[in-house]
């Protein structure tokens, strides 16, 4: 049953039109490939925080964090705490990011050519693009689920709705690149943050703080609060998450692009520190919505230790509990504002991810491959064109694949595991390359290879837990870099040289 009122529709459609219109402003500022990919490296602290936060807060983020809260209670907060604290540590120390910014890079794999070799850049670029696009592949379906559940629109329209939204994102991303994204991210950040705070107040008000705590105590006991006692988490999970968040905040293409876009290394550190505090709320607040949904709708049969959500007699999946709760507690007008906020979150994430992964395809796969084939370098104009075509390609792929694929288990853990396929090796190579003189090309290849194998074999073939898989991947990648580097000669491009290139 459609629960959207005319005022909700007006707010949502009005927001979409406004968002695309302001996104088109970016077009007139695009002169070079650097303007297109890193906004001419002109980002200040505050707009930097807005664009970084908007990029990493999407409807997908709200959905998977709410699902974690629903399934594991307050113990899930540990994941949010780690992500925020690690970001603040990186911001305060400048670990990796200030050296990256000083190198004036445009993509993460570009560093691999600066420090290691062109071949390793191509290899890493391929892994990063593949892993990143597959990772993003689940976004559309989950985001579409949110919209259909909260608005009550028939699920058969999901494909059409998400296709329209993706096409709108593509329009301004292809045309205005990073400049358009920064403009829309700023507006989207304001809208999504206010929606986040509004939902939190509504969720606690309707579910009641006492009921929320009592439900977790009654359903999960100690495991609902203590992450060490919760069988899904434990010490291995905490170590893996710490390593993973260090690698995400330093080597994840969309995050790194914001660091590359800042005015100077000092600005990149400030952006990272401030956004770290936002990240605490980015995780914990949606988890709270999930726990509130458990308190309000968790009355079904027990599955995986928690009762399934039930709304008007319909049994739902845990991931749909949060939007179902919002659909039932938000009134006309407020629902429109919240959905517009969620659409803002969706569009800011998807547009940045489209640009992020397509830039890796163009800059780190196509360009190095052309150089290796001894073809003449492309002009800045042609590079922008290649980027735009890659952008379209990624968008089309997501449209056809992303809407039909369903990830197994908790979405948060699935995204983390698929990300680890390239992040384990990339993080080890980057830190080794920046801080260890002996790191060489052989070690780099081994780290990337073992990092990927360390995820694929234990998780997909042996069906080990996500935590153990992630932990093994990082350990194998480190072992690869150490053994490869120590058994071969030092790289001709040492740490000092790569710093000044």
């Amino acid at each position, binding site marked *: 049953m459609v629960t959207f009122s005319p005022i909700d529709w007006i707010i949502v459609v009005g927001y979409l039109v406004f968002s695309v219109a302001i996104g088109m402003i970016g077009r007139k500022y695009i002169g070079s490939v650097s303007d297109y990919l890193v906004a001419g490296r002109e980002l200040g602290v505050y707009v930097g*925080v807005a664009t970084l936060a908007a990029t990493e807060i999407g409807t997908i983020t709200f959905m998977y964090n709410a699902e974690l809260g629903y399934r594991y209670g307050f113990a899930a907060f540990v994941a949010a705490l780690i992500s925020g604290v690690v970001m603040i540590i990186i911001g305060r120390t400048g670990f990796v990011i200030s050296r990256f910014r000083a190198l004036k890079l445009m993509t993460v794999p570009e560093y691999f050519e600066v420090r290691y070799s062109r071949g390793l850049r191509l290899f890493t670029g391929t892994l990063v693009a593949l892993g990143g696009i597959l990772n993003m592949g689940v976004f559309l379906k989950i985001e579409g689920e949110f919209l259909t559940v909260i608005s009550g629109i028939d699920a058969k329209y999901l494909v059409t709705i998400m296709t329209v939204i993706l096409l709108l994102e593509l329009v301004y991303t292809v045309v205005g690149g990073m400049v358009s994204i920064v403009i829309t991210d700023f507006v989207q950040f304001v809208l999504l943050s206010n929606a986040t705070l509004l939902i939190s107040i509504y969720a606690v008000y309707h579910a009641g703080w006492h009921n929320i705590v009592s439900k977790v105590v009654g359903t999960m006991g100690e495991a609902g609060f203590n992450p060490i006692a919760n069988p899904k988490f434990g010490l291995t999970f905490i170590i893996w998450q710490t390593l993973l968040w260090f690698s995400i905040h330093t080597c994840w293409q969309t995050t790194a692009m914001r660091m590359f876009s800042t005015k100077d290394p000092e600005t990149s550190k400030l952006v990272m520190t401030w956004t770290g505090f936002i990240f605490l709320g980015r995780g914990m607040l949606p988890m709270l919505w999930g726990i509130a949904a458990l308190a309000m709708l968790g009355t079904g049969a027990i599955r995986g230790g928690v009762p399934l959500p039930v709304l008007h007699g319909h049994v739902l999946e845990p991931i749909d509990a949060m939007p179902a709760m919002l659909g039932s507690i938000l009134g006309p007008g407020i629902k429109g504002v919240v959905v517009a906020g969620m659409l803002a979150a969706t569009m800011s994430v998807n547009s940045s991810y489209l640009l992020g992964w397509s830039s890796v395809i163009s800059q780190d796969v196509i360009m190095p491959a052309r150089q290796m084939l001894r073809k003449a370098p492309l002009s800045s104009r042609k590079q922008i064109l290649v980027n735009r075509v890659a952008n379209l390609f990624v968008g089309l792929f997501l449209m056809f694949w992303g809407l039909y694929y369903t990830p197994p288990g908790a979405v948060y853990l699935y995204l983390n595991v698929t990300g680890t396929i390239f992040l384990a090796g990339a993080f080890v190579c980057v830190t080794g390359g920046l801080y260890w003189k002996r790191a060489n090309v052989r070690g780099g290849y081994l780290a990337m290879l073992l990092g990927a194998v360390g995820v694929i074999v234990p998780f997909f073939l042996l069906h080990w837990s996500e935590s153990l898989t992630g932990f093994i991947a990082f350990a194998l990648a480190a072992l690869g870099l150490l053994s490869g580097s120590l058994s071969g000669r030092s790289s001709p491009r040492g740490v000092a040289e790569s710093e000044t290139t």
Partner: protein
Amino acid sequence: MIYWQAFWTGALVIAACSFAVITAIVTVRGYRDLIQMFRRLTAQAGKDRK
């Protein structure tokens, strides 16, 4: 369990407050940053044309 409960309640309050405060600051000062970015990009484009 009671200690974990108190710890997560405190963490949640800090997270929500810092989220709200930073949102307010970024909304006001981010706009100024954006205008400055446009000015610099326009100036840079002018230099490139010359």
